[in-house]
């Protein structure tokens, strides 16, 4: 069955619940306005079951009602990630099992960029968006070089640490420095390593376009809002997948 509608307590009843706030003092007019909004959203009938003033200028509503929309599950389009999202436990298990040693990640901000917000959000144990950073993962060895790391220094440390992956964060975008720096970094790694021995190169930052990896010469670009778990899952997919095959 591919056509469905919401289920309250009877098949096909189409019942949904909704809560929201309107910037209107609580009154009968406010309740009417809430019903009108729910109606415009397609709830018919819409029942305002709860209205409560929040301070003098706002009112909070809970609305129950029926919607008549049908959804066709056959027509749902899902953007498939090309790697599975793993929990820290799964990441650790995969590394332990398939790599049989800790996976080494070297990270930093290159060029004159002193904004470590991005790299720290991904690497620091404190993490980002409720997820712990890569330092939290027992099977990942994280070397965070911090800000203003020169490309030669980054290559040198990656070699010394036998890095499996190099993570670079770029926040400053004046005159496209983030793109120039990234290309310089990619070229330096290509020069310093034989092709199949090169560590995985990953860049991230709020102004990067995720489709630009090839053009920049890196293996992956992460844009705004990327969480540590996504980065860890990607590293595992690429690095442990390779060794297993």
């Amino acid at each position, binding site marked *: 069955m591919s056509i469905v509608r919401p289920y309250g307590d009877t098949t096909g009843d189409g019942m949904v619940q909704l*809560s*929201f*706030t309107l910037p209107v003092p609580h009154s009968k007019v406010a309740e009417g306005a809430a019903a009108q909004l729910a109606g415009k959203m397609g709830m018919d009938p819409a029942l305002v079951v709860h209205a*409560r003033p*929040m*301070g003098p200028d*706002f009112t*909070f509503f809970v609305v129950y009602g029926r919607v008549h929309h049908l959804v066709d599950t056959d027509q749902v389009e899902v953007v498939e990630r090309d790697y599975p999202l793993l929990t820290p436990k799964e990441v650790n298990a995969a590394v332990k099992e398939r790599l049989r040693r800790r996976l080494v990640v070297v990270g930093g901000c290159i060029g004159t960029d002193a*904004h*470590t*917000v991005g790299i*720290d*959000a991904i690497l*620091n*144990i*404190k993490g*980002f*968006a*409720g997820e*712990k950073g890569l*330092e*939290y993962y*027992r099977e990942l060895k994280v070397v*965070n070089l*911090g800000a203003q790391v020169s490309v030669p220094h980054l290559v040198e440390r990656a070699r010394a640490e036998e890095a499996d992956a190099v993570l670079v964060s770029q926040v400053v975008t004046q005159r496209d420095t983030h793109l120039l720096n990234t290309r310089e970094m990619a070229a330096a790694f290509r020069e310093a390593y034989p092709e199949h021995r090169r560590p995985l190169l990953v860049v991230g930052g709020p102004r990067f376009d995720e489709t630009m990896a090839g053009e920049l010469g890196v293996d992956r670009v992460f844009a705004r809002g990327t969480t540590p778990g996504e980065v860890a899952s990607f590293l595992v997919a690429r690095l442990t997948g390779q060794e297993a095959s």
Partner: protein
Amino acid sequence: MTSKLDLDPAAVRAARRLAERAGAPIVDLARRHTTVAVERATLRLAGLTGADSDGIPWVNRLLDCVRADLAEDGGLQHGAALPVWDALRREGIEDLSTLAQKASAGSVRFRLPEGADADVARAASRRQVGAGVAALDARRAERERFVSEVGDAPATPWIYLIVATGDIHEDIPQAQAAARAGADVIAVIRSTGQSLLDYVPEGATREGFAGTYATQENFRLMRAALDESSRELGRYIRLTNYASGLCMPEIAVLAGLERLDMMLNDSMYGILFRDINPVRTFVDQRLSRQIHARAGIIINTGEDNYLTTADAVEAAHTVTTSQLLNEYFAKEAGLADWQLGLGHAFEIDPDVPDSFRMELAHALLARELFPDAPLKWMPPTRHMTGDVFRGNLLDGFFNLAGALTGQGILLVGMMTEAVVTPWLSDRDLALQNVRYVMNAAGRLHEDFHPSPGGFIHERARQVLGESTALLERIIEHPDGLLDAIADGTFGLMKRPADAGRGLDGVAEKSDLYYNPASDILEAP
């Protein structure tokens, strides 16, 4: 509150003694070192404010010049006071900002004064920094007057709410709305990454990452707004910010000068969770706590962080250990019991059987170990899944545990934790939750007496035992707590004493070292 756990007083004394033994060598280390942040905090106490056209504060500029000129002669080792006040006198300059500007332009050279010159510089620096300390005293007295004038928070726990828009001018109306809705304490979350800046930004700021920069001007604006709210509401609304990261003591000074009331200020958080050098952290922390003590500021420690990274049952004893260490360091720095907002959190997996009984045991243990400390009770975050309905229930149990165990400061949990930054309605629902629990069960602790030998008693005893064992293990390390931090005894992080951020801003004090701030704040 009478004892509900019947903890063995000898076991409690033993735990405190162990914390003291683990902490004493760290205090000694802190006494023997100074840092760039300590010297900059001293310059701030002496009244140096403002920044150059690149936004770099004059305290940074001036200290950098002193360090550079004395590079051959010990650099930071002697402290900033002697070279700075010597230069003021030699150059006939009246104020520090003129000196900082001239020094940055290269027209003033610094030296280490000797003999009578050093005596004169010492006395002059002490006078000027003394005026700064007097300003802290004045703001503290002002707070006390204000509280007695408009009235204090009507009940405990104090209701603690967070604002975090990134824009101080958006934060202000939100904070005032939260106060009207019932908050006793407003915390302004800092911009992500400020802890790793080795300077304090200047001025009113309107953009931050997931928070608002801690600056003196932002402090002043928010305190003024909450003073207005305090008068309107007839109760004093406290303001909280963060004295953590690389500028701990400087931010403590700014907080004292702008009459902030509570500051997050943990002894080990920066080391473990931000990879800041351990020596830097302990040195900075000591002066920051001395300043908080003087300014009448309540500190909030960060034990909740241990539970967000490790299992809250297995790691319960690390919270107790950290609380004992935080207490030792705080008291050594002069803080009184009423200023110790020791942290802990409601983070046990709700699917674990008896999770609530364990939460009660842990919360009661903290209450009874530190009977005169306010204690900061932190809501669930780890097991908030996005199911807001279940989240609201968990927050209700969190509030109930807080009521049953007499917590002093209750950080209000949001059912939309991990979903969105709190909406107006989230905050309202969360406060309804708190009010319902406090109204229905606020005095239930009078009837709540866990049975001797029962689950709660045994669990509390077990956690205290594990905490004592952990302290013993720390002391067994050849270099004590520093080694324990280096080998990953706390959390999962290995943080060696010779690595981490801010290490290049640490120096061992010379025999000639002088710091008027320490001199005044440590005077008996």
